[in-house]
């Protein structure tokens, strides 16, 4: 339905056989009808993923994997988490059919409303699950990295709920850009540590959180905010976000008389709301589209690399030095993407596209005016793609399109005011 995005060949394959392991597509536990399965004990999604970490952290990652496997197959853990997601976070979230936007575009737009969860973004799904796991592992201290502050706020929230100490690493640049979120984290009892090294943004916050974890691994749980990092994180976070896709699929079937949407469009930074959404639809015939920020397009303009514990796609120079991403949306300001996305892109199951800052601001305003919903700038990327593709006829008129509205736009209003003026 939508034209294919030509992808350059993986340059790592031409020079040398870089991965000696056989591809892991049919991982144990993978359902035949759902390609997004269990990445197995080594944590590989095809050629991507793995565990590229200092030796000091190897036992901790192995302990985490074992604990998550046990917890995730323990019915009482799942029921406890479901209860918290329902009573505390406000799940399930609704699907909103956008009548006026649909009329405007000639395609049927459905929104999965993660903006309506407690703390206002999908990040809460992940932190509640990981904090519950941390508690089960008898860890007393939660550390997290944050870019825009959404994951930091969510982590601080979960730490408050479960009575844990919380330290959030945040690049100094982001601390200044997101003053209100810094104050929110402090209100929630977390300590925010500005990171002054490197580019002083999200990627450096990840480095600093990893350094903290190496030094304090005994009592500390590192709560990663996206489907990135060493195994088992990309898998854990995707599993915890799959609630988005599972709910969305069953709700869509009610709205669409038993059918799945024709197209599913989700924004991708690290890629957690995309992974969670895609997991619900990977086994269907729906076309899956991940939309990156033009200035942070690791899938569309990056090449394979190994950073932050994972083999995945990264923006980097020819020497392998990681580049800084730049986007109007701090949440997509990450030069890499999760390994499962790297794999889904390499198999062609998901097409990755980009949206630039200008069209994102247009989409932000259009949704507000037509539907009374102010989206976060991150999902405004997914909307921007839908608007462009529908107007260009790439999405045929009358097609049904599901967009995950991963968060609400309140955090971005001041920034948008600065850019577009009153």
């Amino acid at each position, binding site marked *: 339905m939508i034209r294919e995005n030509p992808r350059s060949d993986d340059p*790592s394959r031409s*020079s*040398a*056989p*870089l*991965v*000696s*392991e056989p591809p892991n597509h049919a991982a144990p536990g993978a359902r035949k009808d759902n390609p997004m399965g269990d990445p197995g004990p*080594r944590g590989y999604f095809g050629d991507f993923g*793995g*565990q*590229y*970490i*200092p*030796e*000091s952290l*190897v*036992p*901790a990652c*192995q302990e985490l994997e*074992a604990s998550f496997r046990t917890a995730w197959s323990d019915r009482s853990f799942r029921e406890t988490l479901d209860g918290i997601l329902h009573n505390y976070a406000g799940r399930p979230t609704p699907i909103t059919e956008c009548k006026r936007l649909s009329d405007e575009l000639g395609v049927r737009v459905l929104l999965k409303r993660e903006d309506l969860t407690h703390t206002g973004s999908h990040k809460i799904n992940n932190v509640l699950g990981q904090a519950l796991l941390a508690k089960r592992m008898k860890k007393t201290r939660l550390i997290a990295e944050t870019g825009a502050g959404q994951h930091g706020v969510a982590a601080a929230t979960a730490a408050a709920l479960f009575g844990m100490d919380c330290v959030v690493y945040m690049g100094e640049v982001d601390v200044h850009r997101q003053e209100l979120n810094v104050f929110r984290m402090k209100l929630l009892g977390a300590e925010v540590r500005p990171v002054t*090294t*490197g580019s002083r943004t999200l*990627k*450096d916050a990840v*480095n600093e959180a*990893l*350094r903290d974890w*190496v*030094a*304090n*691994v005994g009592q500390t749980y590192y709560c990663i905010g996206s489907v990135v990092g060493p195994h088992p994180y990309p898998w854990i976070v995707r599993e915890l976000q799959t609630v988005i896709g599972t709910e969305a699929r069953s709700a869509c079937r009610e709205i669409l008389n038993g059918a799945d949407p024709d197209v599913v469009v989700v924004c991708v930074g690290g890629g957690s709301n995309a992974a969670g959404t895609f997991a619900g639809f990977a086994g269907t015939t729906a076309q899956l589209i991940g939309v990156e920020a033009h200035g942070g397009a690791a899938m569309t303009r990056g*090449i*394979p*690399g*190994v*950073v*932050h*514990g994972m*083999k995945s796609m990264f923006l*980097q120079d*020819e*020497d*392998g*030095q*990681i580049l800084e991403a730049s986007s109007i949306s701090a949440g997509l300001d990450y030069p890499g993407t999760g390994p499962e996305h790297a794999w889904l892109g390499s198999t062609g199951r998901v097409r990755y596209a980009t949206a630039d800052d200008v069209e994102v601001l247009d989409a932000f305003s259009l949704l507000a005016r037509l539907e009374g919903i102010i989206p976060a700038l991150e999902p405004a990327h997914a909307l921007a793609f839908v608007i462009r593709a529908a107007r260009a006829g790439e999405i045929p008129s009358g097609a049904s399109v599901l967009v995950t509205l991963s968060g609400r736009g309140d955090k971005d209003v001041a920034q948008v005011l600065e850019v577009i003026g009153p």
Partner: protein
Amino acid sequence: MMSQEKVPAAPAGSGSEQAQAPGKLEATLIEQRATGRKLLVPYVTAGMVPDWPEMVSAALDAGADAVEVGVPFSDPMMDGPAIQEASRRALVLGTSIQGVVAAIAHLNAIGTPAPLFIMSYYNILFRLGLKRAALTLARAGITGAVLPDLPLHEATAWISEAAEAGIANVMLVAPTTPDDRLRSICNAASGFVYGVGRMGVTGEQTDLARTSRQVAARLKAATSLPVIVGVGISTPEQAVEVCQDADGVIVGSGVVRRIMEGSSPGEITRFLGSFRRALDAG
């Protein structure tokens, strides 16, 4: 689960005689150890100052048994503030792996009294292609590589390329490494085994962590390879103390900080000379 861990095959599979014999790094360190002396291995971040090769020479002048040259990376996860800042400066100055390799080749052409090896992060070699990376290092006379973000279970491909090119694959063992995994790592390592002295990243410490001697003692009981401890060894006294169990020490952040503060090569030689004298005095 640990004991079932697949141990990478010994490098003998390459069929090359050179791959089977201990490489220059390992042979040199074992020879020096046999004389009864403790091993001193200073670290310098390549490119952090324009005259960094002179800093390597300064370390050699102090009686180093080998010198570890850091190839800077944008995201040095295992490094503390001093080496992070040195890496940043090096990248701002345009340092690349090609430039570092060329400079080391030049030092080797002039002749060095002790072997040079590199430390970097895996992405630098991964982008080059592992086979090409190993050959490039070998051709420059680089005797080994330390890759702190490449743990044993991800290292299979690199181990065989390094062995084929005759590059030592120095591996790290941490205080948290269980015994059976420690043995597997020692079996896969060559050159020496790098004992991580403390749970944390590189950086100067006021006190020697208790884990420094513990990890050294555990390694000495498990391997005949030289056991050299780094991370948090900041003073000659700490070096002497850890060498009651270890064969030697790596001194990194203290060197790098002094260079950033403007120390001359002569001052670096004097600083490292204090370690040499303390280790020789025992």
